[in-house]
């Protein structure tokens, strides 16, 4: 077996040094009835690289890769072009195969990356501080709600109907088991929610998404002020990080906590994971934050260095009194995010956001010209909703047969509701011919 360095002679010598005659003897504490006498039957034995590649490539070959066809699928995961440098750097073994940086003297690489990542996330969101990442945007959203509950000592969260249903459901799962109330508003594809009317003295937070799941962009400054007046926090969710290159950031609108998905920068679609949750707050809340934090300090020689800090919030120190049970973050995905953003810089990032918006404007105009297609949005970033004269899931399936991924039927996210609504995204990867193919196919099937 190519991954196992011990030879039979090694094993023999080592058993002798231990003073036993077989490896089985080392398993003597296992109840006899539970010991399997040899390799489990009915399963294949070892395979070489070539054989494994063939097996997995055959599975991969049955999927349509987004990059191989015109694709307009978004809703919380976006196809962007990732510069070659990103994946090359991420695969350096010193990043890829390191553990959590608990020994800072030999982990300054990972730690400095986290410090820079935290700064980048704070800058993007317009917030004071950010943590070293969460599992994904949805778990970041649920953790933000629980943090608001701790800070306000209240137990009711109001979730906008524009919140991605997976984020909503992740939060309501926690609400059920952890014991708080999550009031989820019905989907509002045309907006018009009056969230403030629901805020009372028991409300810990209001959760909105910008752009929302239907693509609308809104200014939440007034909502932030109203929340503050009632002692509730405003949590802003962002599922498309590239939008932060063009839109007024949540921090400037007065958000208390930002929970976001960072997949768009540096990370592949990966059929939904692993992604990277972004979590940023106002400075005064930092000690109630979940997850890891990296901080600056000095070493014994007085040189600047970095360490994991404020770990007295965390499970490995506080055990049952921890702010969260979270142990890992999304280190390598955060690294990819950070490298991509370092390459883009101010110039590249803001331009990328404008290109995305421009592509979506083009797409919206093109689709508005297709008979039966009605644009729902009057505002959007790189994603918007249209209504179709037919069941959108059926249309999407028919177009998939023609190798066009036409977007996400809202019914897939909203348990069968909004059957005629289709949500489409455009990014810098969308070409004119992609748009041609979509409009042509749509006009044929509608």
């Amino acid at each position, binding site marked *: *077996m190519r*991954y196992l360095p*011990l030879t039979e002679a090694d094993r023999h010598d080592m058993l002798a040094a231990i003073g036993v005659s077989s490896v089985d*003897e*080392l398993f003597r504490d296992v*109840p006899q009835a539970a010991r399997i006498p040899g*390799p*489990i039957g009915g*399963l294949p034995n*070892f*395979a070489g*690289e070539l054989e*494994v590649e063939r097996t*997995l*490539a055959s599975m991969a070959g049955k*999927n349509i890769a987004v*990059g191989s066809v015109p694709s307009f699928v978004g809703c*919380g995961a976006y*196809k962007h072009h990732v*510069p070659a*440098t990103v994946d090359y750097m991420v*695969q*350096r*073994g010193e990043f890829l*195969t390191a*553990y959590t940086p608990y020994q800072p003297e*030999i982990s*300054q*690489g990972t730690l400095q990356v986290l*410090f*820079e990542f935290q700064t980048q996330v704070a800058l993007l969101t317009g917030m004071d*501080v*950010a943590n070293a990442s969460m599992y*994904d945007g*949805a*778990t970041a959203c649920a953790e933000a709600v629980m943090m608001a509950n701790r800070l306000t000592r209240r137990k009711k969260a109001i979730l906008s109907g524009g919140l991605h249903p997976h984020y909503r459901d992740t939060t309501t799962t926690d609400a059920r088991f952890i014991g708080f109330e999550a009031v989820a508003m019905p989907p509002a594809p045309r907006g018009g929610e009056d969230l403030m009317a629901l805020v009372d003295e028991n409300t810990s937070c209001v959760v909105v998404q910008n752009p929302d799941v239907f693509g609308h*962009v809104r*200014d939440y400054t007034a909502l932030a002020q109203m929340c503050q007046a009632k002692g509730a926090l405003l949590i802003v969710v962002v599922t498309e990080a590239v939008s932060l290159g063009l839109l007024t950031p949540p921090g400037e609108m007065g958000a208390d906590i930002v929970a976001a998905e960072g997949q768009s920068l540096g990370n*592949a*679609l990966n*059929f*939904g*994971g*692993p992604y990277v949750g972004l979590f940023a707050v106002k400075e005064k809340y*930092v000690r109630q934050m979940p997850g890891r934090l990296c901080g*600056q300090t000095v070493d*014994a020689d007085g040189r600047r260095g970095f360490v994991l*800090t404020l770990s007295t919030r965390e499970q490995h120190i*506080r*055990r049952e009194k921890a702010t969260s049970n979270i*142990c890992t973050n999304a280190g*390598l995905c955060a690294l990819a995010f950070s490298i991509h953003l*370092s390459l883009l*810089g*101010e*110039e590249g990032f803001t331009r990328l956001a404008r*290109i995305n918006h421009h592509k979506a404007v083009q797409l919206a105009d093109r689709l508005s010209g297709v008979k039966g297609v009605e644009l729902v949005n009057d505002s959007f970033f790189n994603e918007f909703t249209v209504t179709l004269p037919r069941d959108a899931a059926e249309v*999407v399936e028919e177009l998939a047969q023609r190798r066009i*991924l036409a977007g996400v039927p809202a019914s897939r996210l909203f348990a069968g509701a909004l059957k005629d609504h289709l949500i489409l995204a455009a990014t*810098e990867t969308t070409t004119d011919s992609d748009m041609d193919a979509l409009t042509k196919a749509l006009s044929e099937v509608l």
Partner: protein
Amino acid sequence: MSMNSQGRPSGTGSADSAIPETVTGNRGLQIEEPLIFEQDSPGRTGVDLPVVPAMQMRLGTVKPRARVGLPGLSEPQVVRHYTRLSQKNYSIDTGLYPLGSCTMKHNPRLNEKMARLPGFADVHPLQPESTVQGALELMNELARWLTALTGMAAVTLAPAAGAHGEMAGMMAIRAALEHRGEAGRTRVLVPESAHGTNPATAAALGFSVDPIPAGPDGRVDLDAMTAKLGPDVAGIMLTNPNTCGLFERDIRAIADAIHGAGGYFYCDGANFNAIVGRVKPADLGIDAMHINLHKTFSTPHGGGGPGSGPVVFSAALAPFVPVPYVVADAGGLRLVETAEQGTEFGRMKAFHGQMGMFVRALAYILSHGADGLWQASGDAVLNANYVMARLKDVMTPSFEGPCMHECLFDDRFLKGTGVTTLDIAKALIDEGFHPMTMYFPLVVHGALLIEPTETESKAGLDQFIMALKSLAVRATEGDVAYFQGAPRLTPRRRLDETAAARKPILRWTPPAEAALAAE
């Protein structure tokens, strides 16, 4: 100094080996690297993008933002920045990484290559199921292996990490209890040797945590455990093999006792690498167990994630799983994304789980096969016992008898020397090794928990043993100053963690703003 025929010096230079102060602060390959924000030149970029045509923006009432504040660097600067940072990290690719209960084994590059196949990496989670049949097949195949290796009835692939898996398992137990009309069971037994995530998970879900003391043999004290059973007990969270590196000999009796009292048996599977392919958790009476794909099945730790924590369930808990999961019907494979049976307990994250980790784990499993996994767990246990046997005369093993895949020492061998467990760890860094897990588990004093894994060679272990032995001898000789000054040869020496926590600096601030804030 000798010269070669071209008049070029061929000797190795002066014998003076003291580390000189350099003008740059760099030390050969250890190059000082400023923050990216300190390398900014406005207008510079590492990505060439087309000019944006003039357009009428559709941002409604939202104003376009004026400035983000990101630094501008070119591609070569970015490459050099991250290359230099990477060189300040220890990694498995660098050398032995014997962190107990972390299973830092070799990460095969084949797995990386497979995860990057466009058919896996470039697939959107919300594209039609008809276009992702191969992805669903991969999830199904991984699920099949995980249930076969554990003997359990069902598996959820949804959880994003081990602690997230614990959450899923304990939510399933709560859901099952509610289904039985026994929501009043709110007490969870947790051994004192447990990972911190166990009590944190139970407490987060509103369970009260009732600690069980360890017996003198490092295992759960069965009498103490059964004495704590009662009608309010929801279950037990037990790590097996436990964090002392020991197999819980009484595990069947523990399972029978908890089941007899109406509770469920949650097993923390962090240490599954010791027994994978040799013992099926189902045969031990376990109801739920998470599997850290980033430990047992070698998906890379990545400097702290991403992980993946599938949970296997017994038949009793199988109906109480999170969504989504994959089912097969006439039309092929499909995802159940909202509750269909009525007993599923909800969603735990966006989309369908850590697919990129599933691909890597399956590549690892297929490479090993049943016979390779058998050999791997055997070698993991052999390596740990070898380390213990070779060090037991100079260090103090905490417990008698063979260990599983990790061996535990305490600091009795340091008593009276003035040298601490931390000092040993830091001195080990200068010898070119990552330290072992320190001060965990909490059930022994000054713990040193060593997990070599099966992917270390005997020669590598012998070198590690020699280094540890010499440090142990040095400590007993009273050379305290040597230890307290360690490490000396690293990019940074000991860092002031107290100062970092007292006045946290969690981000870079532009010098102008920083100066303003200081006024």
